[in-house]
């Protein structure tokens, strides 16, 4: 870039562009929200029939156009903003150098070199030191002006000359050299910014069709990565991400950022922002929805790239056998395809929940955490209703076998809990959160028998749960902002119990567990919320008995005591009799015949603090 060009660039012109793309991105966000949170839900609530489904599907596709606009224009805005800042800094340096030249009476040549006159003390022959031209130093990275000469040769020559000028007897020489160097540095920085951002910006041209395909989202992810690289390359000046801070620290950091910086962070670091406990729920949701769309696009693209399998069976003289071609294909692609399909199933389940908003009053979903891999089985944290504004919050930890591919069932359970709870506390916003961010044991058989520490999954997962709860509390505005219940099903309850033992404990008002195999503590009062705020429910079915007794045998309850034991001291809730003799371990959220089961009703009453409405089991020979 010629210095004249840099001098003529008006940062204000770039500001105008920044404003334009910011407007487009904000508009995209609001439009998408309007369609997702108002238009489609109202249609689902008031209309029936097959046409409605097709119609809301079209609304969803239109919403994708706005989401795409939001993401891409947000990225463009950030990139132009950072480009502008780099150019502004370079331009300032240039202007100062040019002003100096004027003050010193030195002529700046079109190529950026600076002429200096003869000046200084006369020597013995009566001559003053000669005048000359100072050429600015440019680093050896090739630039447009340098082609033709080997850079190292040029550098050597330039270095010698610069040295001479700085040490010259002509005082003007040194000044001229300094000015020339500044001009060159400014031009170099500006050129670097220009050349770094041009390809990145070029990637962000709008698509030429209105179908936001999986390839488009996969590209969006690459665009984000490219933008991050560019920012790092030019040393963009965003306030650094907090490292290993507490959720309180994170909140403080975020609250201290300007809106522009917040937007830039979401655009450039959606993964980090989405996972940061302590940040507002709507920010995490925005970031994670971006991540979800981009991940889905990437996985779908990868899945589409896997060739179709050949026929598995071929007829031979020996009858049907597995074909060799298929075996080859399966060896190469089988596992990978299954993995991609499983993860996509989970992502579809999340989308299904988004599409359910409005049905029977179901509130907006907030995706507070998402990762296809997570701690191994995937990571999904989804809230019904905004927890930052809830009067009653329930955070639920699912148990054994939980996996992103089957996460739909867990999400449905929290929908049921939300509906049952909200109607018991009208006017007091309720939020139920499904928290899955730990490596869950893959089967009950995995910890029965167990030759090691059956509690290790809980020990590994507990810190993350604690941090999430602390983050929720911080984002809500403190411990008194909401009545909070932490819930754990099956092994999830073990994680909950373990989390109460973390340094600092678990910020909760009530703890409730379903089908618990043990909570790593001896007595309800050890959980830190008071024994009369600990609630346990256990289905009378065989499979639930197995889980509970199995856990007890494996030492998941300290001193052999698990929540269903009277001596554990928890309040034991009536499970109802809707579950079958064999299968009841996952029946707690059932709505048989369309109405809440006894177990669901009891859990909902705990969530909204209606302690007097919880049906409890008769105590056998106890003093309670």
């Amino acid at each position, binding site marked *: 870039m010629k210095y004249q060009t840099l001098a003529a660039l008006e940062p204000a012109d770039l500001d*105008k562009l920044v404003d334009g793309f910011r407007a*487009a991105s904000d508009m995209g966000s609001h439009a998408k929200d309007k369609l997702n949170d108002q238009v489609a839900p109202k249609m689902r609530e008031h209309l029936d029939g097959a046409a409605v489904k097709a119609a809301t599907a079209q609304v969803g596709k239109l919403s994708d156009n706005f989401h795409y606009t939001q993401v891409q224009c947000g990225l463009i805005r950030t990139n132009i903003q950072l480009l502008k800042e780099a150019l502004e800094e370079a331009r300032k340096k240039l202007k100062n150098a040019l002003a100096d030249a004027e003050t010193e009476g030195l002529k700046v040549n079109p190529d950026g070199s600076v002429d200096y006159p003869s000046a200084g003390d006369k020597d013995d022959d009566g001559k003053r030191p000669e005048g000359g031209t100072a050429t600015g130093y440019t680093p050896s990275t090739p630039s447009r002006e340098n082609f033709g000469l080997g850079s190292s040769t040029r550098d050597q020559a330039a270095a010698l000359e610069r040295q001479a000028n700085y040490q010259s007897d002509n005082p003007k020489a040194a000044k001229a050299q300094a000015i020339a160097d500044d001009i060159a540095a400014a031009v170099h920085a500006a050129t670097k910014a220009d050349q770094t951002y041009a390809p990145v910006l070029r990637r962000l*041209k*709008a698509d030429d*069709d209105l179908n936001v395909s999986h390839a488009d989202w996969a590209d969006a992810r690459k665009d984000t990565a490219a933008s991050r690289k560019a920012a790092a390359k030019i040393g963009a000046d965003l306030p650094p991400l907090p490292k290993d801070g507490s959720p309180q620290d994170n909140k403080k950091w975020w609250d201290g950022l300007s809106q522009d910086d917040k937007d830039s962070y979401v655009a450039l670091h959606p993964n980090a922002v989405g996972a940061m406990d302590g940040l507002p729920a709507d920010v995490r949701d925005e970031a994670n929805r971006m991540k979800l769309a981009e991940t889905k696009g990437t996985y779908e693209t990868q899945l589409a790239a896997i060739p179709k399998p050949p026929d598995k069976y071929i007829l031979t003289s020996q009858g049907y056998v597995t074909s060799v071609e298929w075996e080859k294909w399966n060896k190469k692609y089988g596992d990978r395809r299954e993995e991609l399909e499983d993860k996509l199933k989970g992502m579809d389940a999340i989308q299904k929940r988004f599409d359910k908003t409005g049905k*029977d009053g179901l509130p907006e979903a907030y995706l507070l955490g998402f990762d296809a891999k997570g701690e191994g089985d995937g990571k999904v944290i989804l809230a019904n209703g905004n927890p930052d504004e809830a009067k009653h919050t329930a955070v639920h930890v699912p148990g054994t076998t939980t996996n992103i591919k089957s996460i739909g069932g867990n999400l449905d359970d929290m929908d049921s809990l939300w509906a049952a709870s909200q109607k018991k506390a009208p006017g007091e916003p309720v939020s139920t959160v499904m928290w899955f961010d730990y490596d869950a044991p893959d089967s009950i058989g995995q910890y029965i028998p167990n030759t090691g520490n059956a509690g290790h999954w809980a020990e590994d997962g507990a810190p993350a749960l604690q941090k999430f709860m602390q983050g929720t509390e911080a984002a809500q505005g403190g411990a008194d902002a909401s009545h909070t219940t932490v819930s754990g099903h099956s092994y999830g309850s073990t994680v909950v119990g373990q989390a109460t033992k973390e340094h600092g404990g678990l910020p909760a008002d009530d703890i409730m567990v379903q089908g618990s195999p043990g909570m790593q503590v001896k007595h309800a009062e050890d959980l830190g919320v008071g024994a009369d705020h600990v609630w346990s429910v256990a289905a009378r079915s065989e499979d639930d008995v197995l889980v509970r007794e199995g856990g007890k045998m494996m030492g998941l309850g300290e001193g052999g005591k698990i929540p269903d034991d009277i001596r554990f001291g928890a309040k034991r809730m009536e499970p109802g009799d809707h579950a079958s003799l064999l299968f009841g371990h996952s029946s707690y959220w059932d709505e048989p015949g369309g109405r809440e089961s006894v177990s669901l009703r009891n859990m909902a009453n705990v969530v909204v603090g209606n302690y007097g409405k919880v049906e409890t089991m008769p105590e056998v020979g106890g003093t309670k």
Partner: protein
Amino acid sequence: MAHRRSSIYDVIGAPGPSPDDTGLQLASQGGGGDDPWGGDGVKSDKKSWDNASSGVSSLKESIGKARSKMHAPGKGLKADDFECGSVLGELHTTWEEYLDKVSGRCTTLADRLTKAGGDHYKNDQERKAAFAKLNDKYKDTPGRGSKGHDGGGR
């Protein structure tokens, strides 16, 4: 499912008409006779379709407002040795086009939603087909490869 359930909030709290003292008070007018919960009834479906339609077409205004803030890069940013200058110009052009198309999509969808609420379609199947057909209108074009995977000037 053959039912319509309005918001679960309505145990208490749904803003309803002022209480009359003839006894039963419901937030909506039910179907028939002395039965306060007379059948599902087709309760002003037209209104719901129309609301959806106006929701969608209101977005055109939002797009317009955003576009009024989007300007092509001025002369000061145009120079042969400022590569971003021309790229910013291309960005502006493509996004103007895109938003224009999205606006058109809003119009089409809003129109179809209004028709769905009126007598335009004979039955639910036809209504459904009308929306499904929109998929054909907005197919993916492998075309531009607008992402500039050429990597740009470097």
